[in-house]
Structures are given as C-alpha cells and as structure tokens.
C-alpha cells in the first residue's frame, strides 16, 4: 500500500526573494528621462551610459537573476550606438522600414539593450522592472515572440546573432540595394563558437561594408578569463585574417568609440567593400567598483544592498 507524507504542502521551486523595503525604494525607481539620438559630445554620451547602467541595476535587482557584468561593461558602446547618431531609427516606430538594425548576438546581455531601448523611448522605462518575469516582453534572452519594439530577433544561443545580422546586411546591400546598416555585438568568449567565424568569413566574402561587428572585449567569460578558458587571442589578427577592417577602441571612452564607428561609416560611405570590426576594450561590470573586471559578475544580479551601493556610486560619476 502506498503512503504519502504531506506532499501537497510544499513549494516545488522556492520563490526568489525580490522584496524591497520602501525606505530605499525611491533610488531604485525608474525615471522617465529619455535621450535623443544625434552626433553629440562625450559628456552627453556619458550621461546616457550612466542612465543605462542605473537602469540595468534597477531592472536586475528586481529580476533577482540575470547578467550584470557584460551589460554594465558595454553600456558606453550602447550609448554611442543608440545616442550618438550612428544608428538610424525612430523610437516611436521601430518597424520603420528605413531603420538601421542592431542584433544582439550575445543574447545574455539583453539588460543593456533593453535599457538602451527604453532610454531611447521605444517603450516605457517602467517596463524595465518586468525583466525576466512571468509573461514579460523583456525575456531573459531576447524573444522575438514578445514583440518588444527594437528587438529584431531572438538570441541567446551564442554565435547565431552575428549570422542573422549578416543575412540582414545581405538583404539590405545585395538584394534591396539600400544603404541600411546592420550592427551586431558579440561577446569575446563568444568568439570561441566556430559559427562566428563562418559569419565573419561570409561578411567579407559578400563585401558587406554596411556591416559593423562590435566585439565586447572584456577578457571575461563565465568560467574565468579568456586565456584560461579557451584562448581567443590575438583577436585583431583573426578579424583581419577574416577580411575585416578592424579597429581597437577604448570601450569606455565615448570619443574613441565614436572613432570606431566613424571608421565603419567611412567604409560604408566610400564603398570599400570591407566590413568593419570594432574591438571594444572594456571591463566587465564597469562603473560599479565592486564588480569591475570580475568575471564572477557575468551572470549574477546585485542584491538589494549591492544595488543601492551601485546606484549611489553611479550617481556620483
């Protein structure tokens, strides 16, 4: 005979704690600031990057899971991309047929893309608070099925987004003969996926000077530093050997990032037939000192106290 021992009174999966006390709630709240997308100075881009970083912290602490390190580290690149007049889009109509496109190949970095899109005005910043929650449009990894404005494709399996971006750039340049641009961002650990090199080979084969590949070179991945986990260096030589006009930039210096994008824009304008790779030297978790350059922060959210500390530090920047 079977005996069951109080089986039903139980929680199959313990709920994560996402409780916040009201005292500090204010500083964790989303505001309604948005930023315009135009050629501007380093100061303005820094301000945008700072707001993106704070929104990353705000959304992650609410989510109770997710990736802090990569998103914080690439916030300056995203600020330049979305608010430096590089990528052409209409926040009120992200389906505008003339838009340039951004594909997040490193799908786990979704929080920074979501924060950039919200700060561009593509959707209410409040919604950043739903990151990773049940039925959210802000899926843990971008899900095209959720129709969040600005999310061009699902991603989350490393090494796929860059190929999707190549396909888009082929459609633009080789089929539609338009001047639309396609940007993609991969991680540096992601370079270990062979499919990345298939994509790279094809981008130069098809002379896609409308294709801009940003590599977030933070020298970190989940298990440690790149040379220990699987050495991808020399990155620049690889990109060059695969046919890219390759430029290395300080990924935390807005002017230097813009210099990188200008190389790309010039390549396209001059019809060089060369795709551009921008190797952005960054630090994982940059902007939050206790996360800075620490691979342990690849896939962790801040605790409530850590979030408060991070926001305070960022407010002073």
């Amino acid at each position, binding site marked *: 005979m079977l005996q069951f021992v109080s089986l039903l009174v139980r929680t199959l999966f313990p709920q994560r704690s996402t409780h916040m006390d009201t005292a500090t709630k204010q500083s964790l709240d989303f505001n309604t600031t948005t930023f315009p997308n135009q050629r501007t100075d380093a100061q303005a881009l820094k301000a945008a990057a700072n707001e993106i970083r704070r929104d990353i912290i705000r959304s992650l602490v609410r989510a109770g899971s997710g990736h802090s390190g990569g998103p914080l580290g690439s916030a300056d690149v995203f600020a330049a991309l979305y608010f430096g007049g590089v990528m052409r889009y209409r926040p009120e109509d992200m389906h505008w047929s003339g838009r340039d496109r951004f*594909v997040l190949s490193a799908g786990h970095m979704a929080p920074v893309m979501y924060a950039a899109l919200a700060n561009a005005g593509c959707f209410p910043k409040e919604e950043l608070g739903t990151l990773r929650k049940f039925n959210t449009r802000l899926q843990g990894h971008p*899900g*095209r*099925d959720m129709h969040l404005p600005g999310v*061009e*494709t*699902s*991603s*989350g*399996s490393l*090494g*796929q987004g860059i*190929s*999707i*971006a*190549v*396909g*888009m*750039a*082929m*459609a*633009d340049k*080789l*089929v*539609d003969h338009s001047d639309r641009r396609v940007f993609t961002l991969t991680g540096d650990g992601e370079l270990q996926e*062979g*499919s990345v090199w*298939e*994509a790279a*080979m*094809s981008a130069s*084969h*098809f002379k896609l000077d409308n294709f801009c590949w940003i590599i977030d070179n933070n020298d970190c991945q989940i298990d440690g530093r790149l040379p220990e986990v699987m050495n991808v260096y020399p990155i620049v030589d690889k990109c060059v050997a695969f046919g890219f006009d390759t430029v290395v930039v300080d990924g935390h210096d807005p002017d230097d990032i813009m210099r990188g994008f200008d190389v790309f824009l010039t390549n396209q304008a001059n019809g060089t037939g060369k795709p551009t790779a921008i190797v952005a030297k960054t630090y994982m978790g940059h902007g939050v000192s206790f996360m800075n350059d620490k691979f342990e922060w690849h896939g962790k959210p801040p605790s409530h106290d850590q979030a408060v500390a991070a926001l305070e530090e960022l407010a002073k920047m």
Partner: protein
Amino acid sequence: MAHELLGQKPTRFGFGEGLVTLGERHSNVIVLGGDITGSVLTSMFKEKFPDRFFSIGIAEQNATTIAAGLALSGKIPFFASYGAFCALRNADQLRISVAYNEANVKIGGGHAGISVGPDGATHQVLEEVAFLRTLPNMTMLVPADFEEARKATIAMGEMHGPAYIRFGRSPVPMFTTESSPFEIGKAQVLTDGTDVALIACGAMVWESLLAAQELAKKGIHARVINSPSIKPFDFATVTQAARDCGAIVTAEEHQVHGGLGGAVAECTAKNAPVPIEFVGVKDSFGGSGEPEELMVKFGLTWREIYASALVAMDRRDRGSSGVRAIKDVPQAQ
C-alpha cells in the same frame, strides 16, 4: 483509383523545379547554396535567377542563420543541402533562429534515407524527421514522388513560417500527377480498403501500393494513405483509418523511432488505439551499396509492409502476447 507507374525520377528534381516556379512567381524568393547545388538542384534556380542566388559555401550553420536574417528582412530564403547537414549540423540554429523566431525560412534536405546508396551511413540521414517534428512552428514535409515534391516545394514557399522538405537522391517511382491533391496538413487516401491501413511517406508510399496489390490477391483490402505532411499532421485521416481498419502499418525511410511511425502511434493512442507495425530502419546506421540492395538489406520494401500487414491484422483479430521492440519487424518472405 488507378496508380500507374509513370516512370522514375528523384524527388530532388521536383524540389529544383518547384524552386524555379517560386522564383518566377515571387521576386523575394532567395536561394542559398551550400556547395552541393548540383546535387540538391538549387543549381536550377541559380541558373535562372543568378542575382537571387548566394553561395554560402560549406557552412550550414551560417547558411541557416543567414536565411533567418533574410527572412526577418522580408525575403523568402531557401537553403538546401544534404539532410544530414541541413537538419542536424544546424539543429540549434533551426530551433532558435528559425523556429523560435518564426522566421520564414525554408530548408530543403536532400539525400535523405538509405537510398542515397554508395556514399554510406554518414550521408544517409534517418533521424531528422523525428527532430523536426518536435520543433514548434515548424512545417515538415516528406513528398512521395517527383510531382508531389514539386507541389510541396511551391506550397511551402507560399505559406508563411519555417518549413522543411525532405527529398532523395535516387530515382523513385512517379505515380502522382498534376491533378493529384496536395495540401499541407493533409494526408491522401490512395486506396479504399478497410482491412488494414498502410500509412507511408516518401518512397515508401509506392512500396505500400505494391504491398496493397499483393494483399489484394489474398482478398485483403488495404487502405493506403500517403502522409507527406508530417507536421502539421492529419489526425483526422489517420484516426479514421484506425477506426475503420483497426490495424495499421507505417512505412518510412527513417528510423522506426520518432518519425512518421511515431506520429501515427501518438495519434492513434490519443484517438483510436490499434495495433501498429512499424516498417523503417531498425535502429541502425546505413551503409554503402546500391540503393536497391540497401533497401532490401534494411527492410524497406513492399515485402516487409506486406508481412507487417498480416501481423497487424492478426494482432487485431487474435491479440498477441509477448513483448516486441519497435524494431522487431516481420521478416519478408
């Protein structure tokens, strides 16, 4: 219904011709080559529409995902290679960039099944139907002959959403005509019996007709069903066959696990449980040889279908004891 042998032709030619028709009808159909364009007949499209053909080389992951990017840009991209490489080398890409994205990507998987012949096991893909059938949003077609392959290709190009078509290398009997019905999601009843149902796809449909002819000589009237649409699956026609006949044989050039046989077994278990015998490759890899030799060796002829029909009917009429594995297929006499 007459089922005449109208000649022999590989199904891949139907794919090639269908592509050309699509190219004529729709200016946004694009074809991607995987360095075997002559084998999978994308060469026909390339010749007619060189501007809409792009060679990606030997990089099935990239081709599949580039196709997703093209689809997200409003194109209708086809990528074709050998099924071993364009259903499995790119399985993760198919799952996420194509199926989860609901990207309007079309894949043509050639050289499917044992009848590939001398190239041997690596090239004889026998597992992809099972995989593709589990992918949400995916349409999966296995046409029976040249003409049906042509129609299926056109149909998949003109529907919206991810789709895969499976076709073969070697010539197989032609018996459907321009006027034969074809619709995604539908199976066709080819002969009208109620004694046993033979449900097949691909080249095994013809073998099922042959088996039915032999059964008819014994006064056994088999209902032969052609089920080219593995997904969406025609639950109604298969359920009706189970109810009317009470015994089923499935036949496919695929592993006996998870493919058409699996779909039929799930359907009947859900709607009308009846004995089924599964004709297919018995959980083994293929090998080199001439197609005809191999089809005999691996038990993919009308003879196994015939023998299985007798067993299935016997099980229906008298029950059976013992426990048999799916791959225990009655020996052909």
